[in-house]
């Protein structure tokens, strides 16, 4: 909007409204690590990190292993219980 085309009180009101809206919008943005200076200290609990790094591969292995086991079990069930009993072909 071109404020110069309006009278002065309207211009002032719109300016205040804009500032209020801008501050309201800005207040909803959470703080970001990107805003911190790069030399800031990263407060990491080494014990907690070690525990996470210990269990994460185990959990990933269990999830992936279960998925692959289900896939292989499905294939074997189809191959041994459906395909082979249907007789030879060639």
């Amino acid at each position: 909007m071109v404020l110069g085309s309006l009278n002065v009180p309207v211009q002032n009101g719109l300016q205040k409204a804009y500032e209020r809206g801008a501050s309201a919008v800005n207040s909803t943005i959470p703080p970001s690590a990107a805003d911190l200076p790069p030399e800031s200290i990263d407060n990491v609990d080494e014990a907690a990190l070690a525990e996470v790094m210990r269990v994460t591969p185990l959990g990933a292995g269990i999830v992936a292993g279960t998925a692959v086991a289900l896939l292989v079990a499905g294939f074997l069930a189809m191959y041994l219980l459906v395909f082979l009993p249907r007789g030879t072909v060639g």
Partner: protein
Amino acid sequence: MTDRPVEAHERRILGTELLWAFGVGVLIAATLSLIVFTALSRDINPPSNVERIDPKTLHLSGEFAEHNLGTTVGPDGRVTARFIATQFMFVPRCVAVPQGRPVTLRFAAPDVLHGLLITGTNVNTMVVPGFVAQVHTEFTRTGDLLMPCHEYCGLGHSEMWATVQVVPDSQFKPGPDGRVSCAQR
């Protein structure tokens, strides 16, 4: 030195990944071994037959002339069933085959591309004009099995099907000419 725990973490993750790769390798090898072993021990392989035939004259004389179609038992006891797949029917519409004996199915098409499967079995092949499609199989169960065309061949495609009548070997009795038809059941 502060990165020593990080190195330990990375070693543990690397160990997990190597273990996973080994496990998947074992699974793939076991699966392929099972497929190869059963394929060799039970003679299971994709039907493959490169045999040319003239589609314009196949019904006039030779193997696929009308009097040769259907099931025949050779002097050596080999059972062969011959079909012509044409728009929009299989000729003959029904063949009788024995249970538990090797059977050779042979197909030829004079017009367009067809395909077929026999329900409840692993028989599944294309019938390409100019070539003889051949499938060796052994039927494990008795009964009337549906054999539809499974390659769209025109407006009447959905009406193109035949019946494979699998009968117990004791009831499979060829006539003097070595032929067996569904009516003889």
